[in-house]
């Protein structure tokens, strides 16, 4: 996992993705391609469809039109494809969604043992390594309810990494956290990004985006309004008026 892989192969391809909630057109033809090892940040006003979009990538939401291809597997209604894709994608949620009836260590080892069929000792060894990586090995035998929000979110990251995914999705990972806990979670995410993980992160943390994002997408009304490269983002953060689109300028000036 060290360093950027030399390949520029596309690991996620989304072509003309549409989704409706009843009559409401949430995603209106999103096109996005993510390369292996790339870190992509998605931001935009609430209700713009950014969370819905990343949730279509691991089929927590079903898209009704267009193609989504993850690591060469096309997302269709075929349950085998869905499971194959979910095994390659880790996801971190705004509300952590740890399993409250299981200890921290069991939260992390559950999927490796039951899905990957690893022996218990191997799963536990890797779980402890991951807890060390996210900085809380001493919490292994506690229950999620006994941890702070920041610690819970770091356990959630460890749980997702335990399946050794090729891609990590983050759905507003710091939005439910108290300000003093945001940094501890962002530090873990920055370390992960620097290790070469492919990441799609829905967040408004522009500091994080400036530090590790290769590209930033601005969403509004169910589609991408503007795409900025790392360099363009740095300029736009200094002066939001440098952004091309009016809606991006407005949004950036509000959150900065």
């Amino acid at each position: 996992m060290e360093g950027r892989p030399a390949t520029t192969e596309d690991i996620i391809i989304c072509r003309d993705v549409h989704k409706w909630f009843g009559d409401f057109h949430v995603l209106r033809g999103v096109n996005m391609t993510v390369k292996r090892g790339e870190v992509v940040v998605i931001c935009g006003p609430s209700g713009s469809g950014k969370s819905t979009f990343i949730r279509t990538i691991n089929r927590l939401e079903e898209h009704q039109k267009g193609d989504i291809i993850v690591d060469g597997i096309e997302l269709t209604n075929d349950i085998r494809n869905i499971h194959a894709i979910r095994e390659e994608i880790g996801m971190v949620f705004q509300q952590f969604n740890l399993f409250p009836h299981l200890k921290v260590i069991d939260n992390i080892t559950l999927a490796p043992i039951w899905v990957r069929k690893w022996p218990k000792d191997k799963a536990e060894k890797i779980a402890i390594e991951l807890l060390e990586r996210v900085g809380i090995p001493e919490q292994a035998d506690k229950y999620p309810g006994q941890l702070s929000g920041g610690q819970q979110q770091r356990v959630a990251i460890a749980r997702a990494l335990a399946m050794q995914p090729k891609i990590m999705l983050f759905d507003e990972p710091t939005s439910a956290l108290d300000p003093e806990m945001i940094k501890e979670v962002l530090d873990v995410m920055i370390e992960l990004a620097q290790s070469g993980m492919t990441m799609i992160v829905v967040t408004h943390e522009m500091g994080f985006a400036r530090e590790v994002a290769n590209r930033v997408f601005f969403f509004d009304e169910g589609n991408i309004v503007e795409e900025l490269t790392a360099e363009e983002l740095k300029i736009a953060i200094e002066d939001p008026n440098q952004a091309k689109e009016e809606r991006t300028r407005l949004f950036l000036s509000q959150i900065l």
Partner: protein
Amino acid sequence: MTTTAEKPPATEVGVLGWLKKNLFSTWYDALLTIGSLAFIYWVLRGVIEWALVKATFSTEPGICKKARAAAAAAGETAGACWSVVITNIKVFMIGRYPGEEVWRIWASLGIVAVLAALTWWVWRAEAMREKRRWVVIGWLLSFPVITILLRGFSEESRVLPLVPTDLWSGLLLTFVLAIVGIVASFPLGVLLALGRRSTLPALKVFCTMYIELIRGVPLISVLFMSQLLLPIFLPPQMRLGTVLRALVGMTLFSAAYSAENVRGGLAAIPIGQYEAAKAVGLNDVLMMALIILPQAIQKVIPAIVGQFISLFKDTSLVVIIGLLDLLGVAKAVTGQTEYIGLQKEVYLFAALIYFICSYAMSYSSRRLEVAMGVGER
């Protein structure tokens, strides 16, 4: 300024403090306390006098009549006469189960006691975690073993001659009905609850209709149906005894209620738990078995145990279809001429047994809640 810790005033701690805080904190509290005590004394005095002070415990024949005559002569009310309970204790416990085969019941109780002790021992220590599965297997095996032990093989068998289920009666029958009913109806209820929440329309409609239908009729009618209709549905060579048919009826009935309790628990699980389970790659079966059901059931333990207690007490309805459970035996005993006028003693004794069992279940449920609630704040 001093920072030494001082003892609280004597009126705030200990027995006096407790009394003052809980019973006499204001003048109307004091009034209520004294009034309640007076009422409790007034009620209990009569009961205790009847059940203990003036009661006869001797089993000498005819002593009850003598005691009553003596009381009438003295112009007092007679006390309880417990001889009816004491002489018939075996009848209450096992009813018509053949006396020479009683060792089989003791053996079954022994198996249960050993398993219970093992369970307690193994669950106490975290280090024994690996052995838990063996205890669970032991419990599962105990069902066929005890069934064979109690029922036997055939009439010719030397080791375990057949005791037809028609002869199972008394508290034994009550326990068999309640335990088998509970153990069989709960998994069925879980399946029905899952079915009712299924996205498959046919399954959902079937489960919903089943649950609503069963919940819409009284247990007695389900018991009658199981007696009368089961023989019609089943092939003629499959003849089920009355006890088995009653068990089928009770299980089907209780399952519908368990299903609704479990469904309540399922509805309380946040959508995020489903999403997290799917996102880590669990399939639907694993998601339900490992993530959703454990949490859902934990949330509704009080309701489920309430359902079990109610099933336990409802076993007394089998009298209607001619089975002699504890209450049936009680009724039969009071019907004998030598025990005329002793209904109070017999029914009070039966009520006491029902209460002890129900309270034991209720108490274990609270312990279970505490044990399973670890990690929840």
